[in-house]
C-alpha cells in the first residue's frame, strides 16, 4: 500500500466506452480538466504527458496497464513544482465498472511518500475535475471554470 493515497469514486450515466474516450482523448480532457491535454497512445509502456494550454508539461510518465475500457494505470511524475517533483513517481489507476445505467469510476492516486505534497495537491483538483467530467458526459456541458487553469 502507498503511504499517501486518495480514492475518488463517482457514478456517471454513460457507457464505459464513452468514459474511456473522455479519459484518453486530449480533445475531451481539455474541456473538463482545466484545459490540459492528456497525451499518449494509452497502450502499455507508452509515454504519457499532461500538457497545459501554454505548452508546459505538468506531469509525465508511462502507461503501466491499459485494458480498454476497464482499467488504466499511469506511472505519474510531476514536473513543475520542485518539491513535488522530488517525491518521484506516483501511481494513478482508473477503474471503470458498468453498473446498470451508470459506470462507476474509481480513481486511486498514491505514492510511497508519507504526507505527500503531490497527492495532496492533486486531491484538491480531482473532485472538481470529476464533477465536470460527469456534467460533460451527462449533459454535454462541462462545469464553469474547468475549461482553463484557475487564476
Amino acid at each position, binding site marked *: *500500500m502507498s503511504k499517501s*493515497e*486518495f*480514492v*475518488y*469514486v*463517482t*457514478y456517471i450515466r454513460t457507457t464505459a466506452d464513452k468514459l474511456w474516450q473522455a479519459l484518453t482523448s486530449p480533445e475531451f480532457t481539455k474541456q473538463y480538466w482545466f484545459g490540459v491535454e492528456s497525451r499518449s497512445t494509452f497502450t502499455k509502456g507508452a509515454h504519457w504527458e499532461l500538457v497545459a494550454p501554454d505548452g508546459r508539461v505538468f506531469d509525465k510518465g508511462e502507461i503501466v496497464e491499459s485494458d480498454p475500457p476497464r482499467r488504466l494505470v499511469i506511472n505519474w511524475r510531476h514536473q513543475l513544482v520542485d518539491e513535488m517533483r522530488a517525491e518521484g513517481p506516483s501511481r494513478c489507476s482508473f477503474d471503470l465498472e458498468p453498473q446498470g445505467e451508470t459506470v462507476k469510476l*474509481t480513481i*486511486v492516486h498514491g505514492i510511497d511518500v508519507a504526507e505527500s505534497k503531490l497527492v495532496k495537491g492533486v*486531491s484538491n483538483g*480531482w*473532485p*472538481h475535475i*470529476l*464533477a465536470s467530467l460527469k456534467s460533460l458526459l451527462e449533459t454535454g456541458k462541462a*462545469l464553469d471554470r474547468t475549461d482553463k487553469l484557475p487564476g
Partner: protein
Amino acid sequence: MDEVFRALADHSRRQLLDRLHARNGQTLSELCDGLAMTRQAVTKHLGILEDANLVATLKRGREKLHYLNPVPIHEIGERWIRKFERSRLDALSDMKRALEDRDE
C-alpha cells in the same frame, strides 16, 4: 443527494469521516480503535456511508481498507454552498454600486 445528507446527519458517522480525513485507508479494526462504539455499530455506520458513496473501500490482500471519498461532499459544496455564496457576493456588489451612485 438525499442519501448523502441522511448519512451526514449523524454524529457517529461524521466522526468516522473525520477519522478517515485524519488518516485515509483504515481497516475496520483501526477505525474501531479508541471509539466508544461497538464493532457492529461501526460496521453499520460504514455501510450507510458506503451506500451514500462517502466512503470507498479497496481490498488489499486480505484487508479491506476504508477511504474518505470527497466527491459527494464537493458536489454538495457546488450545489448548496457556492451557489448561495455567489448570489450573496452579487448582492453585496449591487448594494455597493447603489450606495456609491447615491453619493454622487
